């Protein structure tokens, strides 16, 4: 702080600069501190971090487990003080960093698996019985790459290996719970 308002509302340079050096805090300097602005800033940071964490959660879902939980400050809703907001902001920032790190780590594993599939396709005999799923590559849907012998035991003896690409998820149908509800309504 390099100035303060005088009684007429004008900003004056602090002549009592040595007073600042003598005091560790600003107590006793007759300077009013409005924490509201600080709380507003912290709330804005919380909002930004929540958005980032939500985005990382959505991006990671189905690929990787990302830490995203930040415990409640209390059981009931209330105004949080500056310290509580700071702690909340820090926890959200930590969680966001951890989530980002978990995603980077997962991306690395998926890249390695992608390379593995390419090498399997190039020389299946070097990866006997290795099986990589679409999920391991971060892809949606069912299916996997499986290095296995042609013609079963004969191919195994002869060294005729290939990568079999399976696919196909179960056909979409109505949810069982909906069917049950419809049946129940029909009976009623």
């Amino acid at each position, binding site marked *: 702080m390099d100035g303060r308002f005088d009684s007429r509302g004008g900003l004056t340079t602090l002549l009592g600069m040595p007073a600042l050096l003598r005091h560790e805090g600003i107590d006793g300097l007759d300077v009013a501190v409005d924490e*509201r602005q600080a*709380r*507003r800033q912290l*709330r804005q940071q*919380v*909002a930004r971090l*929540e*958005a980032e964490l*939500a*985005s990382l*959660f*959505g991006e990671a*879902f*189905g690929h990787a487990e990302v830490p*995203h*939980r*930040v*415990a*409640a*400050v*209390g059981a*009931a*809703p*209330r*105004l*949080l003080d500056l310290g*509580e*907001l700071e702690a*909340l902001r820090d926890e*959200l920032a930590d969680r966001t960093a951890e989530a980002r790190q978990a995603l980077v780590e997962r991306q690395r594993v998926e890249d390695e698996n992608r390379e593995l599939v390419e090498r399997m396709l190039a020389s299946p005999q070097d990866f006997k019985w290795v099986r990589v799923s679409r999920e391991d590559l971060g892809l949606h849907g069912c299916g996997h790459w499986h290095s296995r012998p042609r013609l079963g035991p004969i191919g195994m003896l002869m060294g005729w290996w290939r990568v079999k690409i399976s696919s196909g998820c179960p056909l979409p149908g109505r*949810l*069982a*719970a*909906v069917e049950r*509800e419809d049946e129940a309504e029909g009976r009623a």
Partner: protein
Amino acid sequence: MSADPANRMGWVPAPQQGWVAPHIASEFPGLGVAWVEVDAKPGRSPEPVRRRLRDLSDRTYGSQAIRLRERPIPWAYRVFYRQIGLDPDRTRTAVEQLTLERLEDGGFRSHGLPADALNIAIVETGVALRAFDANRIEGRLCIRDSAPGESLPEGSGELAKGTLTIADEARPLGLLFGPTAEDYGIERGSRRLAIAAIQVKGVPQIAVEEALWMAASTLEAA
């Protein structure tokens, strides 16, 4: 509710604006409460309402549920929950709770009126709604913190000082985003309902009005 036709939103009464305690409003710009009062009879939902719930179930998927928290209105409520010390993954926002139940149950279950009308409006708009027995509310609704010694009517103990509540001009009706006090909730004998929307920063006024209109028109049509 005013009977003045000019003060009606279509054939549903125009929303009334509640107030927010000044020190809370200064901390949370954009926080507000609005409500409409409608005549309605709690009970089993008629077939059109149940059909609408089924249609909503067919339009709600798991992938939407995962990405829900990134959409502007659910995100705004999540942020507000954080800012008032709640964990939105534990005390879920209204729309996230309903979406989760939809996934667990395989569809939106009917809970009768007025719950179904509120649920339809919440899922369609994302706005947090609650219902009170309008005949027991004194004056305007408001959002304020609890005073020392105050408690909720069913006597679940004294509220901690500074607890954020939704209240009328006499007493708190429930925690903000928490259960409604039993004395003010909807019972079979309730005949006039107050549907209240809690607005937070980031939730547009048009969404609040749409949510109230949707809930009230569903109740009036039933």
